[in-house]
């Protein structure tokens, strides 16, 4: 049964969103920008936006997260945000010296209609490079006395510094669109064809809103296949960083600007998140880099599809290690099956995650029964319909739903397992269903950034995790199972 928000009588409510299951666009923009080495995100809006989002990101990743704000306030709202944006750009350029600034809009600045591109252009044009490489004259409201001059030269000259406007109105779409638009904006602004038929021998991978550990798994797979790659974007180190005694105010690792520039010369782009393939399509349309939008490679079939697409595109042989990992995943699924089969599962989160995970639990013999995503996506509904056709399952699909809808639909069924972020814990507790925490945010456990789901190897750990949750909750017979 497909239930789209506000379109179906089955739902209790038609207007209210209760306990939302999606973020706003700027959050997706941050998730993308935090994988770009040296990038500073700047939210053009009220400072609450960046603070709330930093809060969510900090408590999930347990990392310092830096997001600048133009700190719009009553006075400035009336006159438009130009002065604030100019000043913010100046402050960031002088103080933080990033390699790129990603400027995202917000509901506030979209509503007042700021033309960010124009303001950025103005900033660059009216920017006067004084003797010490700082910009000082753009913002008329600031006086700079001589004593405040500094001789440090920013690593990137402000002339050359990419300052990329990204339109992310919070009142449309969700963080998924925000992520998509950001990837697109990055390649649009930076990618360059270096020669007519140039081929850098690499594959571009658009990751989607996955965990750093997922990026690491994909990079490991690419490494074992000896496949050159450009990851869009690579959060694997920036959002799972070691303690070193130092702190960085933007990703000190991640996708380099040169890599993004080079993405136009790749042999193809694989988007592991169908909802984030706009960048890939742009590269295809503008530079002829073929684009492949795949299901999130969770579990056997979807990973097979990724590996198949990748090896075909890049003309690679699969590796022995990958084959072994695949065999171990099969082994785990087989051994786990008697615990798992027929278990009804509810999954909520981003559309590609939910679709991928639904396919995976089907492979385990479970029954995906309630699928909820906050995003109202036809593509998602198609994916689920296609999966239904193959697996014969008929889940209740909430596209554009919220956690309240999820809860209402769970009350109706005999759900035995819940998969999603920490916000579902209240549903889980009330219905006494175990919750496997996957997705974003996970704020009530440690190490969310270290839990991967993509690829065969992560799939095996996921089998162990899901099965052990089932055993813990439904099988414990004096702690003994299957003692012959």
């Amino acid at each position, binding site marked *: 049964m497909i239930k789209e928000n506000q379109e179906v009588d089955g739902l209790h409510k038609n207007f209210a969103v209760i306990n939302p299951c999606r973020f*706003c666009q*700027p959050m997706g923009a941050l998730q993308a920008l935090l994988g770009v080495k040296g990038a500073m995100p700047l939210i053009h809006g009220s400072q*609450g936006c960046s603070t709330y989002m930093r809060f969510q990101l900090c408590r999930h990743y347990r990392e310092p997260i830096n997001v600048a*704000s133009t700190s719009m306030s009553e006075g400035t709202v009336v006159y438009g945000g130009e002065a*604030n944006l100019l000043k913010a750009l100046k402050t960031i350029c002088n103080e933080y010296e990033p390699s790129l600034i990603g400027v995202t809009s917000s509901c506030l600045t979209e509503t007042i209609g700021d033309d960010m591109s124009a303001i950025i252009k103005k900033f660059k044009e009216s920017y006067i490079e004084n003797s010490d490489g700082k910009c000082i004259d753009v913002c008329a409201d600031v006086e700079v006395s001589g004593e405040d001059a500094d001789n440090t030269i920013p690593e990137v000259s402000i002339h050359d510094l990419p300052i990329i406007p990204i339109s992310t109105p919070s009142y449309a779409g969700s963080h998924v669109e925000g992520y998509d638009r950001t990837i697109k904006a990055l390649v649009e602004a930076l990618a360059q064809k270096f020669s007519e038929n140039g081929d850098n021998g690499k594959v571009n991978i658009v990751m989607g809103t996955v965990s750093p550990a997922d990026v690491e798994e994909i990079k490991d797979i690419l490494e074992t296949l000896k496949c050159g790659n450009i990851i869009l974007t690579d959060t694997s180190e920036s959002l799972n960083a070691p303690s070193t005694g130092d702190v960085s105010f933007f990703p000190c690792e991640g996708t380099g600007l040169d890599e993004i520039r080079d993405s136009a010369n790749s042999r193809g782009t694989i988007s592991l998140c169908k909802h984030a393939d706009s960048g890939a399509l742009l590269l295809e349309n503008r530079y002829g880099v073929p684009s492949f939008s795949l299901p999130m490679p969770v579990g056997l079939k979807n990973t097979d599809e990724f590996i198949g697409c990748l090896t075909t595109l890049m003309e690679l042989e699969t590796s022995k290690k990958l084959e072994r990992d695949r065999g171990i995943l099969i082994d785990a699924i087989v051994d786990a099956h008697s615990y798992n089969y027929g278990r009804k599962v509810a999954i909520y989160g981003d559309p590609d995650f939910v679709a991928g995970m639904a396919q995976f639990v089907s492979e385990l013999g479970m029954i995906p029964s309630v699928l909820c995503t906050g995003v109202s996506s036809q593509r998602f509904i198609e994916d689920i319909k296609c999966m239904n056709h193959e697996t014969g399952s008929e889940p209740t699909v909430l596209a554009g739903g919220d956690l309240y809808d999820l809860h209402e639909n769970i009350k109706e069924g005999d759900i035995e397992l819940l998969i999603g972020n920490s916000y579902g814990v209240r549903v889980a507790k009330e219905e006494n269903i175990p919750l496997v925490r996957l997705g974003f945010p996970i704020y009530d456990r440690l190490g969310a950034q270290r839990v991967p789901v993509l690829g065969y190897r992560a799939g095996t750990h996921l089998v162990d995790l899901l099965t052990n949750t089932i055993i813990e909750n439904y099988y414990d017979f004096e702690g003994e199972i299957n003692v012959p």
Partner: protein
Amino acid sequence: MPYKLFDVDKDIPERKKHTYVKDNADPTEDIPACNTKTVPGCMTERGCAFAGVKGVITGAIKDVAHVVHSPVGCTFYGYGSKRYPTSQDMPDGSKFPIENFNLKYIVGTNLTESDVVFGGMKKLRQTILETAKEFPEANAIYTYSTCTVGLIGDDMDAVAKELSEELGKDVVAFNAPGFSGPTQSKGHHVANHTLFDNLVGTREPLETTPYDVNLIGEYNIDGDLWVIKSYFDEMGIRILSSFSGDSTHDEICWMHRAKLSLVRCQRSATYIADLIEQKYGVPYMKVDFFGPRYCAENLRAVGKYFGLEDKAEKVIESRMKDIKPQLEFYKEKLKGKKVWVFSGGPKNWHFPRPLEEELGMEVIAVSTMFEHEDGYEKIKERVDEGTIIFDDPNSLEMEEIIEKYKPDLMLSGIKEKYLAHKMGVPCILIHSYENGPYIGFEGFLNLTKDIYAAVYNPVWNMLEFEYETEGGIEEMSMEETEEEVAK
């Protein structure tokens, strides 16, 4: 020159006036500039006015449904906010049917592009009606403006008024869009006035006693309120209304009937105490229950007001007996450790003296993100000469403070915590807590234990890879071998 420009701020000299180094010779009015707009592009830790209303004040009330009039983002961000648990106990002795209702649900109007163009009042109306239907147990509905709504100009008060009548329960609109004011403090102000204007005096308590107080500005973080309540219970003082930890909608409505208001968080809630005093003549007293000395002093003051001095002494004595020997142990261990306190507002002047007096620590810096002049004056009063007091720090300043002054501990919020951790400095959460409650006598012991554990975390001695070869393992091992072989 009591003001100091951080090295990292050379290009934003306007930050200088926000950073003050205490000098006992300075006149009282020398404090950091505060409560002004953040420099755009500075990595501020401040939040917005909506957070100040819902996240701080109204979200703690147990029996109210909250409708955020916003695009989906603000609704999400306002969901499951501060860690203020609520009991299910209602003033009439009944039980509210849903546990921690205040944390469990948030409702949003899910504004979209067409609402921005055509206005969102109809949607707000429908959402509130649905909320009333879905949550019939809610005793009131509070609804919140946000940035978008502030710009498109929806008349939320009109909707609230109309629906109050239609639904037969209070619907209250809070008009503090995110962009109002320089910090979340603006939201506190709006919340105080809105609650006072709309609710206080509209209901009468079921009964009154001569020992009824309003406990104002206590939000029950990690159960702080319940600690204070246990003292008051023993003293025979009744909390008629709590503003707003573990409170009910009705309690707010009958705040005018208390004999005395006690203001705990004086940044976020003195407003309403003032208003109640002005309109209803209920006097108020500013109180501080953090740290054993302040807690004792203030319990005595409250006791004195009600002629319950003896009972106050009893409470103090019994608690001190428990915690004193332990505090002495920890003081020995924490003596001389340097601490930087960075809280939202008043905890910055609640904590420095207790940390110094009870634990022998040295407060090297205090910073806040939304304190006003009066708060900074109190901070200044309570710190030693040389302490850096700074307003609305940005991330580079935080790095500089840590690198230059090498605190052994930071007290702050979660956004700052991991910065400190990355730099090898332990950080204790002070908005919500690690292992709270932190208020009162036993709460201070909790804090002390958390501090001790954080400072003495064994991993601090293992940051560097060390391997003792003791004169070369290979050699040593080979000698042994030869000996053995020789046997």
